[in-house]
């Protein structure tokens, strides 16, 4: 099975078929209005088999419209409550989370289309509606090998982020969703594991953050274009298998604090999980490309501190929630995240950037 493609994957859509591609599949027009916080696992999973079947049919149709001689390499790349991604040949279709907003997703797909050389280009400008889920189409790209994290393209990731952060944001792009997603993960921890010994330190670390980092206020930087959910599953080579690296997954793309995009590797490094050498390769490449999230030299941590704390808390929250649902103890890596949250109590977050 191909590598997990983070929360996205490339997807392609034939020009010929975009527009009238809804043949035979019921088209739900209204978005059903449950709060994202109330979207339960049961609700989502009941939709999934039908969605997966329909999505698989749709991507096959799309792939064959692009190339007559299709090798038909077909696969489900991801099937999670928040995203279903299927590939057929060189075309990938992604069903976005059930609470995705059509207008916002369209703006994000459009923004990606205007960032050639940074984002994988979408095959259709607008999301389609399928079984109540928004679907986008992308070309297939080769992901980072999850079996070989040492081979991760840190310099390319940093270069793409620097380029993204330096690109003037289109006028109409929604805020980057990083803080909102972190808030959801923490809310879920609170609901799922109120009595777990790790929950206290994670919630305390979270509560000490400024409101913007908790998704409770507007971000201080309303102009910089950010990815919003960077990790190694968010890079693919296109054209596959040896083209240049590009960013994928537009779900959280928007304006905000660019240090958020550096903060996941920064958090891994701070927690003692990412070797210093890999973190410094990433940081050095970002600075060399003029990335604006951190000062060009000197200590980058005043800028990284708050987002790295937030992402440590988010990752710890997800890990503890997962462990509690699976009824298993935390592993060593998960403990390292919770321990970092516990240490945060002793040091106040860095003051906001001036």
């Amino acid at each position, binding site marked *: 099975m191909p*590598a*997990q493609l*983070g*929360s996205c994957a490339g997807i392609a859509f034939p020009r010929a078929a975009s527009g009238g591609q809804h043949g035979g599949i019921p088209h739900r027009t209204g978005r059903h209005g449950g709060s994202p916080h109330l979207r339960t696992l049961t609700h989502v999973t009941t939709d999934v088999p039908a969605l997966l079947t329909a999505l698989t049919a749709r991507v096959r149709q799309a792939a064959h419209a692009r190339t007559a001689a299709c090798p038909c390499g077909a696969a489900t790349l991801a099937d999670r409550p928040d995203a279903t991604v299927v590939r057929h040949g060189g075309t990938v279709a992604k069903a976005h989370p059930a609470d995705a907003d059509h207008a916002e997703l369209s703006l994000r797909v459009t923004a990606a289309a205007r960032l050639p050389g940074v984002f994988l280009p979408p095959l259709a400008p607008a999301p389609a509606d399928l079984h109540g889920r928004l679907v986008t189409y992308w070309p297939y790209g080769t992901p*980072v090998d*999850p*079996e070989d*994290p040492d081979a*991760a393209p840190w310099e390319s990731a940093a270069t793409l982020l620097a380029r993204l952060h330096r690109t003037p944001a289109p006028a109409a792009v929604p805020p980057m969703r990083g803080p909102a*997603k972190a808030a959801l993960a923490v809310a879920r921890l609170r609901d799922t594991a109120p009595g777990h010994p790790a929950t206290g330190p994670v919630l305390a670390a979270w509560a000490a953050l400024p409101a913007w980092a908790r998704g409770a206020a507007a971000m201080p930087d309303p102009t910089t274009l950010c990815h919003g*959910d960077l*990790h*190694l*599953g968010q890079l693919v080579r296109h054209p596959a298998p040896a083209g240049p690296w590009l960013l994928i997954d537009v779900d959280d793309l928007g304006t905000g604090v660019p240090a958020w995009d550096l903060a996941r590797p920064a958090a*891994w*490094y*701070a*927690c*003692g*999980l*990412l*070797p*210093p*050498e890999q973190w*410094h390769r990433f940081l050095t490449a970002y600075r060399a490309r003029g990335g604006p999230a951190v000062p060009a030299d000197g*200590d*980058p*941590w005043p800028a*990284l*501190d708050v987002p*790295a*704390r937030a992402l440590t808390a988010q*990752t710890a929250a*997800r*890990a503890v929630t997962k462990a509690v649902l699976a009824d298993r103890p935390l*592993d*060593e*890596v*998960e403990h*390292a995240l919770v*321990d*970092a949250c516990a*240490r*945060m109590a*002793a*040091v106040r977050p860095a003051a906001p950037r001036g």
Partner: protein
Amino acid sequence: MQCPKCHAPMHTYNRNGVQIEQCSGCRGIFLDYGELESLTRLEAQWSQPAPPAPPAAPQAYPAAQAPAWGAPQHGGHGHYGHHRQKSFGRMLFSS
């Protein structure tokens, strides 16, 4: 695996994290690519009784350039072992 010299079976041993195949017959040792270098490195560490200063790489990462809440083992020898790397490897690829 069979010994290329005497064809007796070879057994795998782990020496300080380096996999070594040794022949049960002639006691010859087979090293994979890079293993000789790994052993040489280990030997060098043993023969230096007290390294006076950290090696060049960690100097590039001043202690100040990590947050105060960071893991205490900053400075070069973190816990990046294989079992750890596996679980962490999964995390590198998810939100």
